[in-house]
């Protein structure tokens, strides 16, 4: 492990996942809640007892619940050295506090730990009230727990998917979902996309994949509602290694696909824009969510939009 050149593929993947987790996990998920706090009237002697008894390396100092300082074992040692163990904790505590927000990402705390010498960070909520304490040990434990959860989730997904795609033997197995979308049916706009997203989650897709598919297919669904002559169809084919979503209609066709792909370009009517559509970002959003997008369009046949998400690639990024 010490030589990065010798990393195996599997350990390299694991490290990447830990780095990702540092961005995904919030402080609130890894911190120690309800930490032992010291009141401003506590003496250093009482603090020494409390810290020793609870086997902790420091504690926040509060006044009526408000965080005003933090006391570490170093501060205790200083007071012992000075022979002033009966002074108040307020004399020796650190007052220039670095705090961190409960919904900050773990990576923010890692930055603070590497930049400063502090060993523990008080965690505050939006009102600056103390809600927890964070040490490097909390982060390690939090990351390990998250990796464990990942592993369990992975096993569960594999178990679920195996029912459909592994127990059923064929040369090529897939599941097809079809939805008819009516022109101008704003009342049910997004209903099919929502069902598709839920179905993918049921089939064991990760939240990230289900979200990407949901967004892409929502844009396609609204295009059918807004821009077609007679509505159209959504077809989603789920295979073990990819999801192919397809929207097709019978017209009027897109005259200039390149132009339609330009961010901000829209042909939506004034009424439709007033409903929040017509940002000219629909096809751009689809393109950003999927691995491959193919548009075929003609005045005679109508428009087909293929949206492909490759699950093998997604699995390694997950």
């Amino acid at each position, binding site marked *: 492990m010490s030589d990065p050149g010798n990393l195996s593929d599997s350990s390299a993947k694991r490290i990447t996942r830990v780095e990702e987790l540092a961005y*995904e996990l919030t402080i609130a998920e890894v911190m120690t809640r309800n930490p032992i706090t010291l009141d401003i009237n506590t003496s250093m002697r009482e603090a020494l007892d409390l810290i020793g008894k609870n086997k902790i390396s420091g504690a926040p100092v509060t006044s009526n619940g408000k965080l005003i300082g933090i006391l570490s074992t170093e501060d205790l040692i200083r007071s012992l050295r000075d022979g002033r163990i009966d002074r108040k904790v307020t004399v020796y505590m650190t007052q220039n506090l670095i705090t961190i927000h409960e919904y900050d990402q773990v990576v923010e705390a890692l930055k603070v730990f590497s930049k400063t010498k502090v060993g523990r960070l008080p965690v505050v909520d*939006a009102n600056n009230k103390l809600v927890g304490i964070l040490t490097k040990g909390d982060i390690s434990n939090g990351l390990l727990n998250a990796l464990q959860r990942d592993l369990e989730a992975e096993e569960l997904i594999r178990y679920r998917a195996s029912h459909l795609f592994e127990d059923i033997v064929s040369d090529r197995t897939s599941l097809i979902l079809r939805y008819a979308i009516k022109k101008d049916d*704003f009342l049910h706009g997004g209903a099919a996309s929502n069902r598709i997203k839920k179905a993918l989650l049921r089939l064991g897709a990760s939240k990230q994949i289900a979200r990407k598919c*949901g*967004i892409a297919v929502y844009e396609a669904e609204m295009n059918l509602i807004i821009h077609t002559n007679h509505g159209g169809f959504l077809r989603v084919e789920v295979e073990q290694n990819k999801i192919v979503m397809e929207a097709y209609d019978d017209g009027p066709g897109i005259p200039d696909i390149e132009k339609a792909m330009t961010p901000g370009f829209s042909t939506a009517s004034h009424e439709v824009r007033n409903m929040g559509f017509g940002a000219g970002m629909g096809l751009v959003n689809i393109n950003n969510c999927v691995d491959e997008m193919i548009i075929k369009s003609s005045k005679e046949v109508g428009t087909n939009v293929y949206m492909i998400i490759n699950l093998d690639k997604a699995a390694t990024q997950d």
Partner: protein
Amino acid sequence: MDLQTIIDKLELSLLTEEKDFSDIQIRSGYMSDLLSCVLTGAKPHSVWVTLIANINIVAVASLLEISAIIITEGAQVNQESINRANMEGVVLLSTEAGSFSVAGQLWDLGIKDRYA
């Protein structure tokens, strides 16, 4: 921050059914009146500030797992949208205040745009 605190501090009126809002943690906020922008910008467990009041906002919020929508400038929401929101578990809140002012108040409460 929990949704009940946001409702109280911003004096929002509840359009959908009552539930335990102190149990719903809001992690971030997003503001836009263009649905395609919301699709890319809004995060799960967020609050979305908009003056669009039609039924499409419910579908978008449900798809993105947005916890609550604050509809500004007293824009009128019809009963059908409210029913749909109740069905999908999306909380609809209303205020006479404008989007800019609501976003400012949320920011002051500590609701920012970056907590994923």
